[in-house]
C-alpha cells in the first residue's frame, strides 16, 4: 500500500513538473531562404460615400486648398490637410496643418495640431478631432467642413462640391516605387466660412480643391519627391498635374487629370498628351535651406494649353515639426497663358515635396 502510494506521489509530482514547467523543446532548424512577400492587392473600385471616410491603410490624407475672398475683397489662399499614419500597431496618428496666404501682403501663416488615435468629435459620418480642431466629412459626398482654431490664426470653412468627382489614372489607383495609393479629387468646391488672422475677422467665400489619398505606401523625401499642381481654369475647367521623382532623384513620371467645365474627365499622360513642365526660377528658404523651383511653364499639347504658373508669394513653406509631416512648399499661384491660342487664366495651388535635405541618421554618421 505504502509503495503504491509512494509511486502515486512521485507520478503526481512528475506530472506537475512536466505540465507546469516543461515547454516542448524545439529542434534547431535553418531558416528557409527565398521568402516571398504577399501578393500586391488588386485595387477595388472607388465607391461613394464609403471612400470619403477613413480607411485601414498605412497612410491617408484629406487635403483641401483653395482661394478665398473676404467681403471687402481681400484675397487669401488656404491649405488645410489631415494626415493619418497607421503602422498597424495600436492607434493611428493624426496631424492636421493649416496654411494661409494673405495675397495682398504676401504673408504666410501656418499652424499644426496632432492627435494620437481616432477621436470622434461629432455625430456625422466622420468627425475627426485633432486636439481642438475638428474635421468633418458630411453625408453628401464631396461636402466637408473644418474648424481650425488657434490664438493667432483660425479658419472655419463649409465646402460643397460643385463638380463631379475626378478619379486619377482612370480608376483612382496609382502605384509608386514604394507602394500603391487610391486617389480621387473633388476639383471644385464652394467655400463659405470665417477667417481670423491676429484677431481680425473676415467672412470669406471662394473655391476649394479637395484631394483624398490612402494606401499602403511610403512617402520619401529628397532626392525623391514631386511637383503637384491643382488648377482652376477661368473657363471652368480643372486640372491636376503631377511630376514625381524616384528614389534616385530622376523624374519617374509626369501625368495628370483634366475635367472640363461640363464635367468630362480625361487622364493625361506625359508622352501621349504632350505634357511639358519646366521650372522658370527657384527660391531658397532661409529657414530650412531648401531650394524650390519657383514659377513654371506648363504645356499640355492635347488640350492646347500653354500656361505659366507663378507663385503669389515665394515663402509658402510648411515646416512639419510634428509627426507624419515633412517640410514642403504648399502655395497659392496664378495661372496665365493660352488655350488653343486664346488667352486663359486661373488660380492654382502648388505642392513641392522633397526639396529639403533630410536630417542625417545619427548612427550612420558615426
Amino acid at each position, binding site marked *: 500500500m505504502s509503495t503504491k502510494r509512494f509511486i502515486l506521489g512521485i507520478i503526481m509530482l*512528475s506530472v506537475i513538473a512536466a505540465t507546469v514547467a516543461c515547454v516542448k523543446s524545439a529542434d534547431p532548424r535553418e531558416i528557409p531562404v527565398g521568402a*516571398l*512577400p504577399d501578393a500586391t492587392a488588386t485595387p477595388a473600385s472607388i465607391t461613394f460615400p464609403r471612400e470619403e471616410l477613413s480607411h485601414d491603410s498605412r497612410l491617408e490624407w484629406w487635403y483641401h486648398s483653395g482661394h478665398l475672398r473676404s467681403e471687402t475683397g481681400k484675397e487669401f489662399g488656404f491649405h488645410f490637410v489631415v494626415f493619418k499614419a497607421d503602422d498597424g500597431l*495600436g492607434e493611428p496618428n493624426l496631424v492636421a496643418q493649416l496654411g494661409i496666404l494673405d495675397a495682398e501682403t504676401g504673408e504666410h501663416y501656418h499652424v499644426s495640431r496632432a492627435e494620437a*488615435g481616432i477621436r470622434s468629435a461629432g455625430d456625422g459620418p466622420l468627425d475627426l478631432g485633432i486636439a481642438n480642431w475638428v474635421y468633418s466629412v458630411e453625408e453628401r459626398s464631396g461636402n466637408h467642413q473644418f474648424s481650425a482654431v488657434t490664438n493667432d490664426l483660425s479658419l472655419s470653412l463649409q465646402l460643397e462640391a460643385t463638380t463631379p468627382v475626378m478619379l486619377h489614372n482612370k480608376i483612382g489607383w496609382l502605384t509608386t516605387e*514604394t507602394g500603391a495609393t487610391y486617389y480621387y479629387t473633388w476639383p471644385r468646391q464652394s467655400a463659405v466660412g470665417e477667417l481670423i488672422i491676429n484677431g481680425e475677422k473676415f467672412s470669406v467665400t471662394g473655391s476649394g480643391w479637395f484631394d483624398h489619398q490612402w494606401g499602403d505606401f511610403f512617402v*520619401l523625401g529628397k532626392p525623391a519627391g514631386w511637383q503637384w499642381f491643382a488648377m482652376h481654369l477661368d473657363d471652368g475647367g480643372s486640372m491636376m498635374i503631377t511630376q514625381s521623382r524616384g528614389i534616385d532623384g530622376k523624374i519617374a513620371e509626369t501625368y495628370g487629370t483634366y475635367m472640363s467645365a461640363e464635367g468630362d474627365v480625361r487622364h493625361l499622360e506625359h508622352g501621349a498628351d504632350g505634357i511639358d513642365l519646366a521650372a522658370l526660377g527657384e527660391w531658397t528658404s532661409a529657414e530650412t535651406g531648401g531650394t524650390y523651383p519657383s514659377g513654371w511653364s506648363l504645356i499640355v499639347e492635347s488640350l492646347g494649353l500653354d500656361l505659366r504658373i507663378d507663385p503669389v508669394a515665394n515663402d509658402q513653406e510648411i515646416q512639419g515639426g510634428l509627426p507624419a509631416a515633412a517640410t514642403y512648399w504648399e502655395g497659392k499661384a496664378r495661372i496665365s497663358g493660352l488655350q488653343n491660342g486664346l488667352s486663359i487664366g486661373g488660380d492654382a495651388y502648388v505642392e513641392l515635396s522633397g526639396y529639403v535635405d533630410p536630417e542625417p541618421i*545619427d548612427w550612420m554618421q558615426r
Partner: protein
Amino acid sequence: MLTSIGALVIRRKYIVLATWIVVILAALPFFSRADEYLKPGGFSNESFPSVQAQKVLQERLELTTLTVDFVFSHPEWSPFDPRFSEAIESAVNGLTDHDEITYVVTHLDDPKRASAVSNTVHVSAGLALELDDSLEFLETVTDEVDPGPLDLIITGGPALYRDISLASERDLRRGETVAFPIATLALLLVFGTLVAAILPAAVGGGGVLVGVALVFFISQGIDMSVFALNIVSLLGIGIGIDYSLFYTSRFQEELRKGKPVDDAVLGAHVHAGQAILFSAVTSLIGLLSLIAFDVMMLRSVGIGAAAVIFAALLAALTLMPAILAILGERVNRFRIGPDWGKRGSFWVPLSNWVMKRPWLVLIPTSTVLILLAVPALSMRLGTVDATILPDSLESRQGFDVLREEFGFALQTIIPVAYTFAEVGDESSNADPFSRANIERAFDIGSELESLSGVTHVTSIVNLDPSFGPDQYELLYRHPEAITDVAAARIVEEAVRKGAILFLVHSDLNPFWPETRQLVTDIRALIPTEGELHVNGGASEITDIVNALYGKFPYIIAAVLGVTYLSLLVLFRSLVLPLKAVVLNVLSILASYGALVFVFQQGHFSGILNFEAMGVIEATLPILLFAIIFGLSMDYEIFLLSRVAEAYERTGDNVASVAEGLQRSGLIITGAASILIIVAGSFVLADVVIVKAIGLSLAIAVLVDVTLVRALVAPAIMRIAGPWNWWLPGWLDRILPEVKRVD
C-alpha cells in the same frame, strides 16, 4: 555524542549561557545590518541566453530595456496641446545631460505615447545601468523632474523594484508585529506557564538573531538576494521555536517522571535533542538543495536558511539545556494556562479511535489530501508583474495606467537581434541595407511572422506584407529620406552596422507558458549567416524556468533519497522512511493545490485582498518544496521518534503508535500552530508573493499536522503492523548505529 554534549553543557551551564549572551550581543549590530550586502533581484543569471542577448542588444543596437517611466497627465489639456508638450519638454529636458540616460522618448517622438482615452502621456528614459545601481539614480531623476502644471507618476523597473523591496520589508515588520504576540499566546496555551512559554521564543529568537547575523558575513563573500531575508527570518522563527518547544516540553515530561533536574535535562537532550538533530539534518537537506539552482534568489534562501537552522540547532542543543539546567523546576512557575500533563488529553481518544478504524480513517483522509492536490495539476508557471504590489503605491498606479491605456504587459514583445558582422566591421558585409543582408533579414522576418503565437513582427523588413527585398532595397537606398514616422523610427532604433532588430509581437501574456514555447521556437531558428539573440522579459522567464525546472526533478529525487536514507539510519526500518517521504510529498502537493486554487485561479482574492496572478511565480513551488519538506519532516521525526521509543520499550506496534501520537500530538500541534500563525500573518502582506508564501506554508503545515500527522500517518502505521519495523538482517548489520541512552 549527544549525551556527552548534554552532560558538558549541564556541567558548564553558566559558561554556556554567558557565551551565548556574548554571541547574541555581538550578533545584534550585524543582525540589523543583515541586508547591507544583499542584492536586489537575484532571479537571473549571467549565463542565461537572455542575459547574453541583452548584452548584445545593448552593445550592438544601443537598446536598453531598463527604463524609468513617467506618466504625465492633465485634467483638461490634451497631450498635443502645446502647453502640455512644453511642460513635458521642460520637465524632462535635463535628463539627457546624465550619462546614465541613453534616451528619452516622449509623445512628440512617438505619438503612440499619447493616450487615446485620456489626457495622459507616457515618457520613458532608457538607463545604461544595472538594476542594482539604478535605485540610487532613480532618486536623482525623481528630484530633477519637475512636472510643473502636470500631474506626474513615476514607475518603471527601478521604481517597481524599490517599492517591492520597501513593501516586502514593511510586510515583514507587520508580520512580526502580529505574529509574535499571537505566537507567545500559543506557547502559553501549550505550556501553561509563563517561563516555559517565554523560553522557546527567547531561545528560538536568539538562534534566528545569530543566524541572520551570519547572513551579514556570508553575503559579503557570496552574492545573496535581499528577497531571501524575509523567508529566512520566517523560517528561522518557525524552526527555532519548534526545536525549543520540543526540547522544553520533553524536559517538563522528564521532570514529571520525578527525575532530578540534571537528569531531566539530559533525558530531554538525548531524546528531543536527537529528534531535533535529525530534523535539522533533513530540513537542511531540503533547503541546501536550493544551492544547486543557478538562480541567486533560491541559492540565497538555501544558504540563509542553512545559517539560521544551524544557529537554531546550536541554540537548541547548547543554550536550551544550559537555561533549563539553571531554571530547573522554576520552568513551571507562573502558571496561567492548563497543565496538559495532568489533564486528559484529546490525543488519547483520537489515537485509540485511529487504531481501531485505520481504514475508515485512511481512505477519506487520503482522498481529501488528493483532492486538495488536484488543482496543482493545472499549475501554470510564470513570473509576476507589478500587480503583486498594492495599488496604493505610486509605481503600481503608474503601471496600471500604462497597462490600461497603453497595453503595457498585456502583450508580449520579444526583441530578437540578428547580428551578421563583427563590431567595427566597416565593410559592406556590415551594411544592413545591402541587398544580401536585406534578403537574409527578410527571410528571418518572414519566418518569425509565421511562428505560432506571433501577431506581427516589427523590423526594417516587416513594414508592409506586400514588400519583398526589391522594395526594401529601394526604400533604404536613402534611409534618411523616409518620412513615414514609424518606418523612420525603426531605421533610427532597430538597425545598426552589423545588426538588425526584430520585435516579435504576440497576444500571449508575457508570463504564460505558451509564450515560453514561442521563445523556444524562436531560439531554434538558425539563420544562414550570422546569429539570432533572443531577449525580453519572456525570454528571461524562459531561462529562469528552464534553470529551475530542468534540475527540479533530479533535486526532488536526491532530496527524497537522502531523506529516506537518514530516516532509515535513525529508525532502522525500510517502511517508515518510505511512509514519511510519501506523506511529506502529499503535504507539499496539497500546498501546491492551495497555491493554485487561491493565487493562480483567484479564489478568495476579495477576502485576501489581492489580484489573481493567473500564474504561479516560478520560484514559489521550489521554495515551498524545500521549506515544507523540511518542516513536515520535523513533525514526522517528532512523531516517529516517540513511536520508535515506545516500540523499543514495549515491542507492541499498536500501543507504540498510539503512545507516539499521544505524546507528540500536543507538541507537534503547538509547534505547528506557531508556525501557522507566523506564516499566516504574512497573509496581511501587501506584496502578493509574500502573501502566497505565507498562506501556502500555513496551509501546508495545517494539512500536515491535522490530516497527515494526526490521522493518515498513524492509520498507515497501524495497518502496516510489524512491517513498520522491517529491516533485512544484512542491512541491519551494515547500517551505522544511532544510540539512544535512557
